[in-house]
């Protein structure tokens, strides 16, 4: 499989995530269903990689394996050099739902994640407060998450992952539940934040534009059993702006990815353009 890396990370930089021929199946009524059929991918230090795939192709399952929730049937996953699951909490995580505890304030939720990541109580409090200030969210620090809008909840959820010390961040369709306008705002917000301190990111999405706008590299996952069927280096420089959307190269890449995805949907050609 082509593992050439592009802008974002130099080839000699250590890999923050290495997924090597990972396969996984689940028991079903008759036998087992193969969900992952030998997936290989890598994320370099400071690289933003997007995983694009049809729904149900096993993206969330793959992130679960990276996070050590389950073991693969075969294959190998190394997170910052350590086997996945060898130690809890090898990667920071931002799920599709904000996953904020409703009985903790925004500040309290961030503190909890930092405590789990091994920070002391005082450190967690200070880091959370500073982070909220840096992102201009300090006026929400003492609010309970359920009074915040969906977009605001996702900002808090992202900040929580951003403040966690792990070198790798896993983002699972972070904006999938937001309306179109909020989603665009959030993408630009995340883009500018990420470009400030380039963490290694593996982003799962089913939005082609989102992947093109944010990533250094895009991997297309086939439908189950999932494998990487297409890899594409995104040629746009950084810092990026949404104006990319109107460039012709953007349109061509979008069309290319769209065709690749459509083939993976079994050619049903459900309109997305």
């Amino acid at each position, binding site marked *: 499989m082509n593992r050439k890396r592009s802008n974002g990370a130099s080839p000699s930089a250590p890999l923050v995530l290495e997924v090597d021929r990972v396969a996984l199946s689940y028991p079903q009524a008759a036998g087992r269903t193969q969900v992952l059929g030998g997936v290989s991918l890598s994320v370099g230090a400071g690289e933003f990689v997007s995983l694009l795939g049809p729904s149900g192709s096993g993206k969330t399952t793959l992130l679960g394996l990276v996070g050590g929730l389950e073991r693969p049937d075969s294959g190998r996953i190394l997170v910052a050099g350590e086997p996945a699951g060898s130690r809890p909490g090898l990667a920071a995580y931002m*799920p599709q739902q904000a996953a904020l505890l409703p009985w903790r304030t925004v500040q309290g939720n961030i503190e909890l994640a930092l405590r789990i990541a091994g920070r002391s109580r005082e450190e967690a409090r200070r880091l959370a407060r500073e982070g909220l200030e840096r992102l201009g969210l300090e006026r929400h620090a003492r609010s309970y998450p359920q009074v915040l809008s969906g977009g605001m909840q996702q900002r808090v959820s992202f900040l929580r992952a951003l403040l966690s010390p792990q070198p790798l961040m896993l983002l699972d369709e972070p904006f999938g539940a937001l309306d179109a306008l909020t989603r665009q705002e959030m993408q630009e917000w995340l883009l500018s934040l990420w470009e400030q301190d380039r963490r290694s990111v593996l982003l799962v999405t089913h939005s082609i534009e989102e992947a093109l706008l944010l990533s250094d590299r895009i991997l297309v996952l086939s439908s189950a059993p999932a494998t990487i069927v297409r890899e594409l280096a995104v040629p746009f420089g950084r810092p990026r702006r949404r104006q990319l959307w109107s460039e012709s190269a953007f349109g061509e890449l979008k069309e290319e990815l769209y065709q690749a995805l459509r083939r993976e949907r079994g050619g049903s050609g459900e309109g997305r353009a």
Partner: protein
Amino acid sequence: MAGSGHRGPDRNEADGREAVRRDAAADGAASERAGAAADGAASERAGAAADGAASERAGAAANGAKSARARAGGRTRARLKAAWPPLAVLAALLLLWEAAVRLWGVEAWLMPSPGRILSDAWEARERLAGHAGATLSLTLLGFAGGSAAGFALAALLHLLPLVRAGVYPLLVLSQNVPIIALGPLLVIWFGFGLLPKLLLVMLVCFFPVCVAMLGGLRGADPALERYLRMIGAGRWRRFASLELPSSAPHLFSGLKLAASYSVTSAVVAEWIGSDRGLGYFMLLSSKGFKTSLVFAGVAIVVALSLLLVAAVAGAERLALRWRSERGGAA
């Protein structure tokens, strides 16, 4: 523009597992509400309804401390508003009772008038207070001990799933045993001291708390559970930070049930074997045809029961403040 919001039918099918999780999360609030509705006391339900109305109204107000104060004020006002009609009916019934007893000249040993009950109770106030004190301490001890034991066992069983699988069905079944009927047995085993009475009240309080708590510990949002596991939260951390707080509404339903049973069971325990307490006092008074004092005893039992349930409800409101912080898009 493409890229969001489009959900074809195949997506819905393929993402079924996640959709279920999402639904479960969305239903969380609803099931909590259902849990609250399962509470025994009707007055409690009326109170909750009044709360709802108040917080809705306050939800329209601006954010910040100002709205918090407005919400609290609105809630008190709503509660007062909801309280006066039943109070008026109660007063009318008492007046009717007084009038009927006087009109037909019913004898006091058969049916004393409210006024007579009051004056007799005032005369016997010292004895009444002493016995009420004894019943109250028995109730509080039994309630605290039984609830603590129920809480502890529920937590333990939850952390030992295999043991839980064996014990939980029996616990649920045991709720059908009228525990008060065990009173005479306890007297045979433990004599007439404090112990058998305390055990009885504790047993009565233990089961509702334990069963409610076990259900609640299971009810944690799976999406939150998955998140915490992903970022490396261990078993104890997930228990303390997720399962325990998310079971709090269930715990309080159990505590309210236990509170409303506890005074009654203390009185019954005192009937079975005691030389003090309201149960003993009422039994003695009824044997001496001092009906007005029996009524006075009943009134105090009702008052103690209401006080205890109200105290638990107050603790619940305090502990679950975050739930009244609703508003905005969720």
